[in-house]
């Protein structure tokens, strides 16, 4: 057991190191550096010599291996540096924004579940009916509508015309409603279709027919057998796309002035705020890794076959 844990830990460490190295290269190879932003050239008089001096002092003239080596040394000491634009410790800045993003992501997932589970199930159970065709239309529309537009429509409807839901900031539960709704509606269209096709696949499986033969009720078959069997593909897609979901909420964050992590990192990229970008990538790598591990573990419970096969392999 200890050896398995140690191996897993080593694997994760090497995986993180690799990701950090590749992203380090990409960030540094992109044209430009943060010196002009640091010196605020848009407003302050700066000479080319001063620009060069700061560039030298901050080590941007060093070769890439030297720069990476320095970064690695700090990384091992768990020093993630300070943001060039705010002078604040990077991890503190990111950790302050992370809960907001997590709340928004969970809110959007709840909206997605509320829409996708009934709609996907009903259109699989009543294939070809009006509800199936209706949900297909909704999915196409949902996939085609840009989320910022949907967000503006929702603000106009629920913030201005009928009702006064908060449209900005993060003040308790109510301010989460509109952004979650916008994001949840946007992602649900994919999952409705995915759940439907996965359910149709499970409903045509042998075990469903044998359950029917045993006289199990349709409701029980659906809830305990078919639905459960259809979840792994849906969860796989979810696990893979969670990273882009968290990173992709920028548009929503800007629209609703929601203080999340996406907006923070887009600004950092624009200003070439290297430490902040690296810190973000590190956090995201860990989050994606954790989610995917959870997804892997969930297979064992959702699909009993796996457990059986594992047992057989051990014999």
């Amino acid at each position, binding site marked *: 057991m200890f050896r398995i844990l140690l191996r897993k830990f080593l694997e994760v460490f090497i995986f993180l190191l690799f990701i950090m190295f590749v992203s380090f290269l990409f960030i540094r190879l992109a*044209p*430009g*550096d943060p010196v*002009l932003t*640091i*010196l*605020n*050239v*848009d*407003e*302050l*008089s*700066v*000479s*080319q010599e*001063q*620009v060069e001096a700061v560039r030298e002092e901050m080590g941007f003239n060093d070769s890439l291996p030297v720069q990476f080596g320095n970064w690695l040394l700090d990384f091992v000491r768990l020093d993630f540096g300070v*943001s060039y*634009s*705010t*002078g*604040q410790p990077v991890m503190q*800045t990111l950790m*302050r*924004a992370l809960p907001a993003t997590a709340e928004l992501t969970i809110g959007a997932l*709840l*909206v997605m*579940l*509320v829409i996708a*589970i009934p709609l996907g199930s009903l259109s699989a159970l009543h294939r070809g009916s009006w509800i199936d065709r209706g949900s297909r239309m909704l999915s196409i529309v949902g996939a085609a509508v840009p989320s*910022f537009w949907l967000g*503006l429509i929702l*603000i*106009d409807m629920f*913030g*201005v015309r009928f*009702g*006064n*839901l*908060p*449209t*900005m*900031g993060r*003040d308790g*539960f*109510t301010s989460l*409603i509109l952004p979650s709704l916008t994001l949840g509606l946007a992602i649900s269209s994919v999952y409705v279709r995915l759940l439907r096709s996965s359910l149709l696949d499970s409903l045509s499986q042998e075990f469903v027919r044998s359950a029917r033969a045993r006289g199990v009720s349709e409701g029980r078959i659906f*809830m305990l057998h078919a*639905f459960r069997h259809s*979840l792994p593909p849906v969860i796989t897609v979810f696990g893979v796309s969670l990273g882009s979901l968290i990173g992709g909420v920028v548009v929503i964050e*800007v*629209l*609703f*002035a*929601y*203080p999340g992590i996406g*907006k*923070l990192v887009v600004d950092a990229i*624009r200003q*070439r705020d290297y430490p902040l970008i690296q810190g973000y990538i590190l956090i995201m790598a860990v989050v994606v890794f954790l989610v995917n591990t959870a997804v892997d573990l969930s297979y064992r419970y959702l699909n009993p076959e796996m457990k059986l096969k594992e047992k057989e392999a051990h014999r």
Partner: protein
Amino acid sequence: MNKKTPLLALVSLALSAGLLSACGSSESSPAAQPSTDNKNVHFLYNFSTSSLDPHVDSSYVPLRAGITETLVRLDEENLTVAPWLAESWESEDGQHWTIDLRDDVTFQNGKPMTGESVKASLERALEENVAIQNALKIDTIEAEGDKLEITTTQPFPEFASELVNPNTAIIDVSESDVVNKPIGTGPFKLTSFTPGSKLELDRYDEYWDGASPLDSITFSFNEDANARTLALKSGQVDIVYRPEVESLESLKAIDGMTVESTSTFRVHQLTMNMQRESMKDLNVRRALDALIDRQGIVDTILLGYGEAAIGPFLPSLPFAPTYAETATQSGPDAAVNYLQEAGYTLQNGVMTKDGKPLQLTLLTYSSRADLPLIAQVFQSDAKKIGIDVQIRQIDTPEDYMASNRDWDIATYSNLTAPRGDAGYYLNATYHPKGALNFSGSEDPELTKIIDELNLTVAPEKRAELAEKAANYVHDNVLNSFVLHPGTIVAYNGKKIKNWVTTRSEYYMITNKLDVM
């Protein structure tokens, strides 16, 4: 039994999700309805910041929100440097400065502002912000009572105007959390800050210039122009900085809504690359300058919210030259004339000289949305008289223009006198050593004027030299200036009193701001 738990969990998750969202949608009344006896103004700004460090954060929110103040400020009427926390300042040689501070100022924690506290604040700014270190060129600071003796590392006549910079604001640095809760001298003190979202401020009763009639201010951020406009329409906010331009008509249609526009210190310009063969010819540059349809661009791209520019400086600045009307011709015909003087002829619809067609590469970038549109208008106007302009979209203009010289013209946007002095723009853009000298201009005569400006202390003489430099730039078409974009502010005119849209864009929440 064991097998059922995960499914049960899932079902209950789905159910609770349904319940949650159901109670969410029913809870549509706002959390806190502002009570009538609390005089609050909600201001919505178009940038967001995740840090409040008054000395580092370049969004200048602490100053804009009325928490902090600087030693000197920009007077809105004359656009000259005026006293604020400092009563007066003087220097004989531009290197040794004596600054007299007001003696009636207190920080928002009740402590008096003294020479020592100002010194400590300035020293923190120098230490934390390398840009401020570069800009102020301070060698030593001595404090004695309410007097400061500051020596700069070199004669530096615009030193006083550099103190307009919001990053030089005076705070009490002995406070523990300067970064998240700065204690300044302004009319409003911070009560809470949500990074990237908003500030809550309360009136500071002991404010030296007279306490505000308001009880509190909410200063929030939203970077989406449409969302800002909607927030004003819904009544959630009272004042909106830079609402969506396209929807201004619908805002104006609302009873009591006031929309204001003021030209800023910014100029959108066409930078000329003087190192390119065709661009070395003054007549070619004049032709390109004549080709820019300034008023047309202001009317179509900015929907009239801007001012056509002749030179780099806003005409209301004391050192902006009064360009004689007849000095330059403009329009496509004038452009063709200039090109013919330069030796170009129209062959098969193409401007050609010595068998070579006139082809130009025009750089533009999207982080300022007006610029690519200006580039397109210019391209189409140039095509009409036989000039082939290729537009190239770049990402980071400063880096690209400094390291690549394979372009002829570039759209660029600059603040030309952000602190009421011309020194910054002239040095950065036209001095051979300037960091924004993208045209590669190394004109000895102009450099001489700038060098002289850098040693001149008397304001009148400085204005004279700045005007001379601006005229020189204009006569030699070292760059072409298109327009000064306007700042638009919309507010609820039935509620808000004494709002001023400043040209400097520094001063927003003041002690004069009031409600009806």
